């Protein structure tokens, strides 16, 4: 079951840098400013919610968007499951499962905007969540890098975004200090070569000896995504709504069903579900 304990704490030579969370078996996500002291390729110690310690390495920086991707260098033993990603709507209830210490409260509140354009300190515009926070702390340092979830009773939590650095004074001079910003999870994932379509295709058809491998920045960059190493703001990125409209237009234009919904594997799921029911019955 997807849980809320997939967050991590990041250390470098014993010094706590900040929070982040596991994306899958290979990667974790954090805010750039948390790990700014570590160049891509440098080693980190990651502490999981279960207490397990695993080595990691900065894989890619997306400084302009205040995001960084971390490679996990050893398969973890604990079976922590990251919730499915989802898009947020205005009015959703959110919560942040990570807190800097046991003395700090867990943050939560209402989603004020599910999709706004937010200008990061480094100058890059990103797609962000605007979050009203019930715990009026004023100072939210220590929380950034942590995941933002949607909590709905009776449903598994969904991952909506990642808390980035807050600039209360600059963003909107009059805004209340209990408003936080988080990069949407879609935006965060778009920022890294390693998770980009070009890299995925290369991995898929690499020869059998080549393992899944991220390229720490500094090595040759693939040209297909938002050039995280070069830190050039990409202002022209289509917004999510535009991209959905574009997708629908493509679907209508291409006139064919979605291949992913046709493939053999999809059809087998029904069986698996049935199978597990039988197993339960037995």
């Amino acid at each position, binding site marked *: 079951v997807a849980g809320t304990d997939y967050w991590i704490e990041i250390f470098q030579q014993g010094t706590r840098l900040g929070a982040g969370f596991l994306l899958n078996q290979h990667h974790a996500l954090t805010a750039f400013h948390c790990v700014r002291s570590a160049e891509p390729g440098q080693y980190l110690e990651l502490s999981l919610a279960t207490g397990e310690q695993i080595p990691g390495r900065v894989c890619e920086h997306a400084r302009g968007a205040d995001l960084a991707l971390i490679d996990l260098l050893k398969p973890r033993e604990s079976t922590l499951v990251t919730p499915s990603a989802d898009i947020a709507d205005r009015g959703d209830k959110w919560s942040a499962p990570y807190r800097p210490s046991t003395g700090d409260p867990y943050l939560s509140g209402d989603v004020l905007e599910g999709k706004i354009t937010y200008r990061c300190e480094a100058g890059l515009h990103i797609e962000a969540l605007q979050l009203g926070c019930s715990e009026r702390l004023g100072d939210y340092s220590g929380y950034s890098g942590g995941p933002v979830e949607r909590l709905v009773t009776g449903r598994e939590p969904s991952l909506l975004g990642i808390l980035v650095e807050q600039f209360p004074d600059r963003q909107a001079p009059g805004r209340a200090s209990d408003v936080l910003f988080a990069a949407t999870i879609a935006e965060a994932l778009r920022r890294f070569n390693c998770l980009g379509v070009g890299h995925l295709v290369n991995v898929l*058809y690499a020869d059998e000896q080549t393992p899944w491998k991220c390229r720490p920045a500094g090595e040759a960059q693939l040209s297909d995504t938002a050039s995280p190493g070069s830190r050039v703001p990409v202002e022209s990125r289509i917004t999510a709504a535009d*991209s959905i409209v574009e997708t629908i237009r493509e679907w209508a234009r291409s*006139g064919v069903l979605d291949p992913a919904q*046709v493939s053999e594997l999809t059809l087998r799921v029904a069986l698996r579900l049935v199978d597990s029911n039988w197993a339960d019955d037995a």
Partner: protein
Amino acid sequence: MSELLRETINAAERVIAGVDSRVGDYLGRLLSSPGELRSGEDFERVYLAALLDFIGLHDEAVDVLRDAPDAMSRNMEGMLAAAHGQHEQARNILVEALDASTDSPLVRKQMLVNLAAVSLRAGSVGEAEAWIGAAAAIEQAENPAVDVLIATVRASIASRRGDLQALRSAAASLEEASKSRLAELGTEHPQALAIVANMASAEIMLARADNSAVRLERAIDVLEVAAFRLAAEFGVDHPQAKAAMASLAAARAEPASVDAAVLLTEQVTAEERTPSAPDEQRLAGPLGVRIVLTGPPGAGKGTQAHFIASHLAIPRISIGDIFRYNVTHNTGLGTKAKEHMDRGDLVPHAVTVAMVRDRLAEDDAQAGFLLDGFPRNVPQAETLKKMLAEFETRLTVVLELVVDEDEVVRRLSDRRTCRRCERVWHMLYDPPARPGICDDCGGELFQRDDDKEDVIRHRLEVYNSQTAPLIAFYADEGILVGIDATGSVEEVTSRALSALAPYVR
């Protein structure tokens, strides 16, 4: 073009962008003025329908397309039905749409390839193959999106059939077509993620077939990232995200080793097949699943028939049971059969068929059945086909238990039967506590003549000469699925259920 149509499209786009919450009056006015609708371009209507469907106005989407005579609209109507899981309806719409006039070979090709995809999802592999062949035959309409779907359908057909060579070739085409499609879309396009998810799914099938754990793991990792990103972009409930996550769940649920069934059925499917014309084929009836179980003596048909039928909650109809019932109840047919059996003759074809017909006409068989021990040869299979056609249905799938001849001999020649209680023991798999003595009743165990090696070899010869053409017959029909029947009863049952899954609705 129609202003109203354009306004409605803009309004729907604004709803998706979150600027507006309703499509407002435009849609209502548009739907009540068919002239306005018709004055639009084909593509505009189709695009509006897709937008409306996305924002949950499925009925209105269909209304926009209704009565539009052009092939593109009919094609979209079929796509919408398919996207909502209404495969049979989608099929009917698309089959009718083939008659709609179009001077665009591309639109015609799109319809054929959609028909193939829908047939596949409805479980008709042979039909899917026929449509895809027709689609591929249209050469002048090159289009990467269509090519991706053609290759996907072919890969799925090959995987169902266990035809490794065809799978490899389809996967190579898929890779090529997908790369063209990606070049067309650009890798930043969110649709590109769906293409990658599909490529990864195909690679998962192939890695399993090649028994490459490294490639399998890597392809699952890629699928995971693609599925995660699709959910992040479109939301967890979007069909593309759901399809990718379902593929991922399935890939993870499968054991890491190659599915032996894929390789074992290769021998059958390597033969040249000519799929029958789609027009002659019908989709299976709405109810149940009709299975024929076949395989050599000693393959464990009886045991598996029992488990599969009870798992699927359908009656197991064994030819032996039918005979016993008729003979012990002295039915007319039973009496006739007994005359021949007493003389040591084979029971005439007509008598057997009549018994089967009576049994299949019973109420419990209407929701599906598993037929064990019948048909044994091609003429019987043809008779069964006609019989089911009279009942306005047809077989869903034929499951072949594939087992090595020496394994059969080993299984059967080690069987010992108790003289007193007739319980069957197996010296290897199910031995009694004391050799030669029945645990249950203390009776003496002996080897039946049927279980002696030379007799078994002879029965296998008979089976091969009669049943091999039967296997080819069902392979032609496109409904044959073979599984490896070596291993424990549980393993074989699990393989059988996996193989049947796509046919069980």
